[in-house]
């Protein structure tokens, strides 16, 4: 059993090393630096002469944070479903323990 744990740990470390090596471009970019060409398709292209975003998430939703614009705008149904999951969990807890409190 201990041998399997060790092998699993080694495989996990190799996976972490590979992921860090493969995603190295994320680390190399400076904080706040202009986006690369891949992010350009998502966030949009900023025209410095007119001072406006030409296409992409910032132009369409007006939010500086592209993650929030995905979570609440492009994938709003997903967030609504998550809120429903939370509501169901609270309803379950209230149903299980709500009557017990007043005994």
């Amino acid at each position: 059993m201990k041998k399997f744990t060790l092998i699993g740990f080694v495989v996990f470390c190799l996976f972490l090393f590979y992921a860090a090596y493969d995603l190295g471009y994320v680390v190399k970019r400076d904080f706040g630096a202009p986006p690369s060409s891949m992010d350009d398709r998502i966030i949009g292209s900023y025209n410095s002469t007119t001072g406006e975003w030409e296409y992409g998430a910032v132009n369409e939703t007006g939010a500086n944070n592209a993650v929030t614009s995905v979570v609440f705008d492009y994938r709003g149904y997903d967030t609504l479903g998550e809120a429903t999951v939370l509501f169901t969990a609270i309803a379950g807890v209230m149903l299980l323990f709500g009557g017990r409190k007043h005994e």
Partner: protein
Amino acid sequence: MSDEKMSVIVQTIAGLLFPMVLIFSFYVILHGHLTPGGGFQGGAIGASAVALLIVAYGSKTIEKKVAEENLSIFESLGGIVFVVVAIAGFILASAFLSNFLVGEPLFGQIPGWGESPLNSGGFLPILNIAVGMKVIGGLSAIVLMLALVSREVKEQ
């Protein structure tokens, strides 16, 4: 925990920390469309503030201040705001959950490069506040209810 309250030192420090944690939670919720974070994350921070108070002061004291039914009502209010804003997108614009406030003067400023104003993002801040209300109310209600019930089970 067999004894309900913790010592006076812990209670004082928890009372001092509670408003700061709550303010940080509101900051994360309100700046969800500008900085990392959002409704879920800020709501979890706020619920952890309530959990801190429950650990320090005991669940019975906190229940006298705020009943978990009221927290549940607060949570449902957030859900209603979310759905109403989504249906308003269906009525005022093209589709369900479409961002109908972009371009409007109140919330719809499209930011330039760099810092952007707080009133940008269309209806994203409203949805962030709604989800923050949901998560603060819901997680606080769950933590408070479980603390009350576990105390009663210990007493029996």
